[in-house]
């Protein structure tokens, strides 16, 4: 769906400003149906990468293909694409209803009032129809942006820091809406600092560092990344092996952790002792831990 191959972007800030090397050989692939998250520190190049996918920035070298075509401003490839910018760069002089209608009609089709009303109703914005966007909160503006995905069948949705500045209730509502859009078959590319949120939504993640993708993988792989411990739970009242750590006892249920190299020893122990094993799984870490591990390690683990 999206292919970026060795993309380099550099530009000057201002006429005589310093040259910024925003992307330095970024390569990634987003597959159809993915909920893909771009993760990275400030200035890593996440937004720049997204601008390249949207045709808002032309790479100095390398290749970007979206839906099989090179993105260009206003090109027909955007017929199934929607974008929600990080900052509220909307037409602030329009009302909620006018903006929803306008953004939806930019897909070149006449939009019946009923469709606009239904979309606003679904997003809980019906009572704010006549409110100018300049007076709306960021969450309300984001909903106006998302309304276009409800009016049209969006194939590909780009979200740039979508929940930044939203209150927790709004974040939850927004998350549900995104899940719904994703379940309807849309591919979503999201760029966010909120790793816990990515953990809840995304299925694939790319970690960008200094303009380059250093890790691109399934989220589940990143959550068990380079893990050395197994979580175990078994029934037993007797002596436990000395390599079992973080022991918790709940009645006769014992929970704990064992090192990866002791897995077979533990299996032998439970078999010989005739213990009933409830759980034995590679211990998961949070995306945040994984992210810091990768960033500090300077790249993907071996």
């Amino acid at each position, binding site marked *: 769906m999206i292919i970026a191959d060795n993309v380099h972007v550099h530009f000057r800030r201002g006429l005589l400003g310093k040259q910024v090397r925003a992307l330095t050989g970024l390569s990634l692939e987003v597959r159809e149906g993915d909920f893909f998250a771009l993760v990275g520190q400030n200035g890593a190049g996440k937004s720049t990468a997204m601008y390249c996918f949207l045709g808002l920035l032309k790479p100095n070298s390398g290749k970007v293909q979206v839906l099989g075509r090179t993105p260009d401003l206003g090109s027909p490839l955007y017929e199934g694409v929607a974008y929600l*910018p990080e900052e509220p760069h909307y037409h602030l002089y*329009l009302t909620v209803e006018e903006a929803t*209608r306008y*953004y939806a*009609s930019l897909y*070149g089709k006449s939009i019946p009032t009923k469709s606009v009303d239904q979309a606003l109703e679904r997003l809980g914005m019906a009572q704010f129809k006549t409110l100018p966007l300049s007076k709306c909160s960021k969450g309300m503006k984001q909903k106006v942006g998302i309304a276009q995905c409800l009016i049209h069948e969006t194939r590909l949705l780009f979200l740039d820091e979508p929940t930044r500045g939203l209150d927790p209730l709004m974040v939850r509502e927004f998350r549900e809406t995104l899940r719904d859009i994703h379940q309807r078959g849309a591919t979503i590319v999201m760029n966010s600092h909120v790793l816990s949120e990515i953990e809840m939504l995304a299925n694939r993640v790319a970690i960008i560092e200094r303009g380059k993708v250093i890790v691109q993988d399934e989220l589940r792989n990143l959550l068990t990344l380079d893990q050395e411990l197994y979580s175990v739970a078994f029934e037993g009242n007797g002596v436990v092996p000395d390599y079992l750590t973080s022991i918790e006892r709940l009645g006769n249920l014992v929970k704990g952790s064992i090192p990866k190299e002791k897995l077979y020893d533990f299996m032998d122990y439970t078999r010989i002792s005739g213990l009933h094993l409830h759980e034995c799984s590679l211990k998961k870490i949070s995306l945040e831990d994984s992210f810091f591990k990768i960033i500090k390690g300077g790249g993907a683990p071996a």
Partner: protein
Amino acid sequence: MTELLRANVLVNFAFYRRSRLLLAFMLVFLVLTALISLPPLFINSGVQSFNSLHEIFSTLNGFLLFLAGGLGLFIISSHLRNRSLKMVFTKPCSPALWLTSAFLSAVAVSFLLHCIVLGGAAALSLGWHLPVRAGLVFVSMDTFIASVGIIAYMMLLTTVAHPAIAVTFALIFNADLFYEFQRWTMAMIRSGNSSPALHALEKLVHYLYLLLPMVYAFGKKTEGIHNSLRVGHGDWKFVLYSAVYATVLSAFCYFVALFALQRKRHI
């Protein structure tokens, strides 16, 4: 395509309706015009009434020329400054189409205002028992055509430069100024100054005068009509010539502005 154009034009109309800067600009000029119009309302002489009508009409037309610049400037600068175009260009709406819609909207608003001013002038003529002169229509058409050129020129300047620089450039670097400058250099040469630098300056000023757009392309020919509001049969051709000039100028400005708009980083 038609649907896209329609959607953009309607939104641009909403922009003009709700632009406080344009509203303030209009109010200032309307107050000034009202102040000019008040004294003649109490004078009951035909000649005086015509002079007043002429003055009000000229002032309003002059105002519309300034406003045309504002219409072209604000629609581009506001959307570029707010970076709202990224919402437009990430949909199947090309910069060419958006720029066309912005230009058409500005021209349509300008046309509407010219119609109002012409209607007002005709109403005043009738109110003051003056004949409704064809010159009113001629001047309105001539000024509207000049406005179209100004809109396109200001759109181009605002696309390539900061609005403040665009306004300064438009006010300082205009054909009339260079025409006067050229006349001055020629007068100096005729008075015996044969310095090569002055000759070079005269040539430079002459070419700059030719390059820069003119407000009234046939101003020398239509000056009399603007003053007397009387039109001869042969004078209407100047409206056509002006229209051709404005079309060529607008097309040039449009393509350069489009090139600049496409190369801009809308991020």
